[in-house]
């Protein structure tokens, strides 16, 4: 049992890191451009599909990743400059509706190009193994994902805290109008931020492919979880996204794995059997509601205004 707990904790952290990649981009976009972008999940999905397909053609997982990232980044920038730019001044409702339309479009596009079935991702042999530590099994690939994610987290930290661009981003997240008033080309900053977010989403998608299925609805499922993460973590805050993502990842995985056993301690087995999966899916939402009742702005709100 002990090893199972460790393994699931590990999986939870790994999910959390994947969520972080998505949440970081989303929280920046939302924090700086005040744009509620439902299509963020679509970029994730496209990253997964493109990466998996190119990996298939070329025979190399790495090549797939390397091609997918700039491709989706380009798509993101294109999207921002054509459609999304016009939505900055509109209310959140308009943004939700327009990006909802984008979701419909991208889902259908994927179905059109790739068909309704998903895409299989083959991992290269070196990544396919398992590491055995302290009696528990840790898939090598998941370790790699965590490594990459942490590296990205480190990169983002350096970028945001130590560079001038990062300073602009933080200032923008805190008070958008001021940054514009300071004479910074705000359109460029926005395009940059969106491109960064798109690249992160694509990376998450490419990495997620081998672990979760590459399928059409994958964007929406993880999108909601990502929103829960940034709402809990505080909009505009990368630190919040990190903490929130790990928390959600761990709670979600651990909940699904162990809630039944926990319930069995207090409920009759049949009830535990039915209640557990339902409650497990609801856990992260319950958590969000709880957090918002104490800290309506999230745990680490970046916004001053």
């Amino acid at each position, binding site marked *: 049992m002990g090893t199972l707990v460790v393994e699931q904790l590990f999986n939870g952290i790994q999910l959390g890191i994947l969520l972080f990649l998505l949440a970081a981009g989303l929280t920046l976009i939302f924090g700086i451009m005040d744009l509620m972008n439902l299509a963020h999940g679509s970029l994730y999905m496209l990253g997964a599909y493109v990466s998996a397909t190119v990996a298939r053609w070329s025979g190399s997982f790495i090549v797939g990743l390397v091609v997918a990232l700039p491709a989706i980044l380009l798509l993101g920038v294109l999207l921002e400059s054509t459609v999304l730019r016009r939505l900055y001044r509109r209310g959140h409702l308009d943004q939700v509706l327009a990006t*909802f339309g984008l979701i419909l479009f991208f889902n259908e596009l994927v179905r059109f190009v790739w068909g309704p079935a998903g895409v299989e991702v083959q991992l290269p042999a070196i990544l396919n193994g398992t590491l055995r530590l302290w009696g528990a099994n840790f898939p090598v690939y998941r370790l790699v994902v965590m490594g990459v994610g942490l590296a990205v987290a480190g990169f983002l930290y350096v970028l945001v805290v130590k560079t001038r661009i990062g300073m602009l981003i933080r200032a923008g997240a805190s008070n958008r109008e001021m940054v514009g008033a300071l004479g910074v080309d705000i359109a460029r900053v926005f395009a940059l931020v969106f491109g960064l977010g798109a690249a992160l989403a694509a990376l998450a998608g490419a990495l997620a492919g081998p672990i979760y299925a590459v399928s059409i609805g994958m964007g929406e499922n993880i999108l909601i979880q990502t929103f829960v993460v940034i709402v809990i973590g505080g909009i505009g805050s990368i630190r919040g996204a990190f903490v929130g993502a790990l928390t959600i990842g761990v709670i979600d995985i651990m909940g699904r794995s162990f809630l039944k056993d926990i319930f069995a301690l207090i409920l009759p087995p049949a009830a535990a059997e039915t209640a557990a999966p339902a409650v497990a899916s609801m856990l992260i939402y319950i958590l969000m509601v709880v957090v918002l009742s104490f800290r309506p702005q999230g745990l680490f709100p970046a916004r001053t205004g």
Partner: protein
Amino acid sequence: MRLTARSFAVLVVLAILAVVPAISAWTEVPFWTDFARRMMILSIGALSLNLLMGYGGMISFGHAVYIGLGAYTVGICAFHGVTDGFVQLAIALVVSALVALVFGAISLRTRGVYFIMITLALAQMVFYLGVGLEKYGGDDGLPINRSSDFAGLINLKDSVPFYYLTFALLLLALLFVQRLVNSRFGMVIQGIRSNEARMQALGHPTLRYRLTAFVIAGMMAGLAGVLLANHTNFANPEMMHWTRSGDLIVMVLLGGMGTVAGPVIGTVVYLALEEFLAGFTEYWQLIIGPFLVLVVLFARGGLLGFLPDGRGPHGSKRDG
């Protein structure tokens, strides 16, 4: 009621709806009756959402839940042998009201995007609950073999009577919403949408009123759900998925928020477009997606927004 261009458009649509079964019989295509009935059922749902969105300024991304609850009430009752329509309806309304009360109490303390996200999250919770309930079909849904029995007054398995029952309910719903928005309650709700801080400063306990609107809208959607269950003979969790709530929002938007009958137009157009495009290509969403984007960017007042109304519209600006 003055006959403005808008009212005229609505009357035309209602008139057409009134004669669809006749057209269906004449052309020997029963599909039209089914299709139009579905439009009317979802219109009731959209009408209730418009009450929240257009008049109340509350953008709920979880409204489809109440339709699902209504449908599942019928399904679960039928599953356990309770086929009395009146009982099912009563339970559906109570369940919708209670859930709306709880969800409203939780989410209405928030604003803007937080509100949208919370309603979304709560809706997904119910969705997963539905998927998890193996006993009632889980993911596959719950087939409903016996229609609701309204003391034998109407046989819901019979397409045309069911159609006119739905039509009558739609008219009733329109009348209800119209009275509501012009009542004291309606003024307060619109005032809250316009400037909540001022309403509080004036002495209105705003949370109470918003919650009431939330519950009323939930109950109306529950009614739509009861009808839907009888229409599809099915109840499944997919009815409560957040993308269904998205559909409802689109229907309200298309018709023009802040007009009483706009949602009917919006629903009719949306479903008709869906059907029409699906006839051309199975990839019709490739077109509907960008269409939606264009409507949001350029036709913000919805389709009815293009028609003059005598005075300016009460709303459809930034939600804030």
